[in-house]
């Protein structure tokens, strides 16, 4: 029986106390859920544990013996394994090759003994119920299986303590269920597991013990048997949080977005969106559910002018905008919350003011001719920061100093900060904390009640179900199912997301 203990871990970054005297303990045969908002210090803590950072104060003990990790190598040697949120796999290698990468069993003459490697991979996958084909190429297998490869990788290196960083973010509901089965199996096999997440439901379902971090410090522990989501949210955010989106019935008006037989190609010229037709009416929220990579990204990019349309038409109001540029779409009073806020939504080293006028800078009042009016821009930014509750020391700090939730609020503020009649929002709350999610959801409903049409694309099934008046499920580039919001279960949608036609 092994025990991993963190004692009084404190880590300071310039101007930030990332971890404030954190104590944590996990033993063999236990799953510890580590819950916290973005920026609460979960990742910092785990990076310390994994040897990527060194703590300013405090110590790491394994079975009571203090450890000092100069790098991940030391942590791995001590039996700590990390399954990262973004997989570290070589897409063109086989499962076996990925597992043994860096610790290959070598025969005489330095030749890799791939047969031996394959045998070990098979052994591990049987022992822990991690079904994989050792010869499959990584890029050919689904994300859920790729995750198993990551787990096997860690087990191959003899990890006793497994850290999972937001492991469910990329999985379908069914895959999540399977993943929980694997977690339980690992626990029963005597591994100690730290499960990092910000999803309340999951942490209650799978953990044996829950630790909640808030602003770098331990906010409290909870017993999954007795705690509720509301309690946990309260611990996480430090105030009561409304978890259910409060909204009245939709009052749909005329269509604001009409998509007819739309075909869109992806970067490799493969059909990503295969002849889709739907509409979004004023005053309604249409949600698009689906596992990531089923054409949602390409659909949104096509609707917002970022990607060319191969066939079909897109109409906003009564204007055909099939081949419009992003700016023309913008000028049709369309708000677009992009899928990847750091890649497309913000210029991270720009100030909040600059980001607030990123798409409206070229017209009055922010500029006249080519002369920017920074005073006007600053005033507007200050107003929006106030109105949208962006937590920042000022409007002139760079966007990259904000937490993920506040960055997202900047985008929402910019996009909703003018009169819009259509909102296209992709993953509007991805990776942000419950407090900010609550806030952004309220704004979305507010826009609907004001009369805008909204298209919400999200891989978070809960989110789609909570917000939508109508739900479309995308699979393999097509809309495979349509439901009325509130009249469908997660299981039904989950099946459609996995491609099983209803």
């Amino acid at each position: 029986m092994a025990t991993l203990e963190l004692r009084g871990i404190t880590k300071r970054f310039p101007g930030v106390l990332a971890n404030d005297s954190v104590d944590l303990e996990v033993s063999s045969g236990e799953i510890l859920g580590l819950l916290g908002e973005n920026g609460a210090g979960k990742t910092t803590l785990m990076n310390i544990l994994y040897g990527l950072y060194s703590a300013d104060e405090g110590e790491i003990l394994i079975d009571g013996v203090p450890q000092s990790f100069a790098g991940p190598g030391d942590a791995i040697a001590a039996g700590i394994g990390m399954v990262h949120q973004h997989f570290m796999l070589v897409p063109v290698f086989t499962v076996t090759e990925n597992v043994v990468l860096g610790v290959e069993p070598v025969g005489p003459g330095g030749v890799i003994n791939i047969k031996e490697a394959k045998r070990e991979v098979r052994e591990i996958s049987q022992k822990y119920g991690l079904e994989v084909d050792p010869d499959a190429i990584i890029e050919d297998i689904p994300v859920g299986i790729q995750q198993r490869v990551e787990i096997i990788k860690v087990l191959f290196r003899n990890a006793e303590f497994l850290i999972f960083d937001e492991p469910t973010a990329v999985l379908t509901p069914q895959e999540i269920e399977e993943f929980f089965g694997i977690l339980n199996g690992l626990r029963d096999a005597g591994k100690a597991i730290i499960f990092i997440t910000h999803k309340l439901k999951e942490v209650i379902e799978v953990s044996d013990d829950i630790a909640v971090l808030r602003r770098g410090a331990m906010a409290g522990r909870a017993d999954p048997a007795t705690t509720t989501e509301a309690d946990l949210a309260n611990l996480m955010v430090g105030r009561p949080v409304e978890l259910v989106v409060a909204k009245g019935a939709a009052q749909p008006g005329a269509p604001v977005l009409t998509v007819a037989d739309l075909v869109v190609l992806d970067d490799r010229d493969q059909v990503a969106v295969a002849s889709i037709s739907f509409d979004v009416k004023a005053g309604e929220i249409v949600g698009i559910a689906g596992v990531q990579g089923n054409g949602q990204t390409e659909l949104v990019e096509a609707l917002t002018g970022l990607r060319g349309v191969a066939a079909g038409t897109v109409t906003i109001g009564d204007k055909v905008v099939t081949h419009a540029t992003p700016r023309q779409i913008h000028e049709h009073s369309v708000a677009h919350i992009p899928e990847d806020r750091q890649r497309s939504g913000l210029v991270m080293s720009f100030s909040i003011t600059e980001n607030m006028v990123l798409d409206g800078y070229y017209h009055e009042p922010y500029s006249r001719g080519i002369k920017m009016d920074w005073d006007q821009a600053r005033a507007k930014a200050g107003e929006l920061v106030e109105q949208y509750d962006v937590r920042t020391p000022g409007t002139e700090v760079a966007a990259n100093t904000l937490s993920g939730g506040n960055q997202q609020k900047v985008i929402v503020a910019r996009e909703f900060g003018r009169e819009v009649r259509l909102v296209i929002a992709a993953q509007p709350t991805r990776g942000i904390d419950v407090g900010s999610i609550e806030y952004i959801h309220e704004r979305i409903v507010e826009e609907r009640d004001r009369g805008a049409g909204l298209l919400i694309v999200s891989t978070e099934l809960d989110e789609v179900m909570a917000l939508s008046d109508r739900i479309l499920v995308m699979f393999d580039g097509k809309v495979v199912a349509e439901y009325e919001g509130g009249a469908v279960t997660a299981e039904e949608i989950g099946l459609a997301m996995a491609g099983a036609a209803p």
Partner: protein
Amino acid sequence: MTEPQTPAPDNGPDSASGSRWAAFMDDLTGVNVDWRSALLVPVLAITAALAVSVIIIVVSDIELWREFSLSALGDAIGQAGSAMWALFTGSFGSLAAVSSTLAFSAPLILAGLSVAIGFKAGLFNIGAEGQMLMGGMAAVALGITIDIPVFLNVPLAVIGAMVGGGIWGGIAGLLRARTGAHEVITTIMLNSIAGLAVIWMLSTDFFQPAGRQDPVSEDIAVSARLPRLLGFLDRTDLRVHFGIIIALIAAYAIYWLLYKSTIGFEFRAVGFNPDAAHYAGMKVTWLYVSVMALAGGLAGIAGMTQINGLLYRASPGFAAGIGFDAISLALLGRSHPAGVVAAGFLFGALRAGGLEMQVVTDVPIDLIGVIQALVVVFIAAPALIRAIFRVKTGEEIGQLTTGWGT
């Protein structure tokens, strides 16, 4: 130190409309103006570079290698000392020295601005040298054919040089926008093409004076010459000309463009994050073309100051490596117009002082290249400076450009 931020930080009600100068300095140094840390690294880097070059002079002393003795070592150190002194007197020691420094600075600043504006837009303009040549040749073509009053002829030369260099830079931008060909590669190639094109052009009847066989152009009209600023003193050794004024005007214009105009906002947005710029409705490919054309135009003016300010005629290599020094200079100046001006004066002083050093001592002027390179190395590696001088220099230097692959 962080990348310059704009607009100026709102430090309170009084700074909202604040003085223009304060805003300018805020843009230069980032959000929280910390003069000490903003100047510390460059000053220490220059100090360290000079110290290392003293060592280089000493250890490269040929007498010392023939037969080591303490007196030879003493001589070598003395030699290094007088080289450093010559470097100083040649650049700042007299009115002529200052004038020479300013004359050298003008094209350096202009070419530095060319590279800097590329950096700001995420483009690595290695082509300032070629753009200088093309701009300069345009100025020569105008200067040998048109003779109108100086207040018309000089502006005409500026415009002509801008167009000439701008087209050359614009080609690289167009290739990047249309085909994705990386500007590092294309500008290097365009440098070679420009260099050879100049030699060819100088052998044509249009440029070559009658009776000459060597590649050299006719002299430009006197009215096309950039007026000498200290001409009223009636001394031939005061070479500072109107080019430095053009360079300073250009620096301010680029500052205004980058931080006060919608165009500059687009340039910087594309430079930091082309995806977000595209998302925000900016025409990224068109911006690549216009940035490269503007960069080429600035380098073109730099070439023009070489011709119309100093040489009065073209011969191969009249760009004199200034276009390459400009890259170091833009890095040193952190791609900010004010920084480029400061770095331009420094490099101009090194060139002026280097000449004096070569005359007074045996140290070849090539040492100047070593010093410039060392300054950039130390600037780019603030950790090194910290280790050497055991000081805290604030944050690491910001991102200068977005890698090679993007």
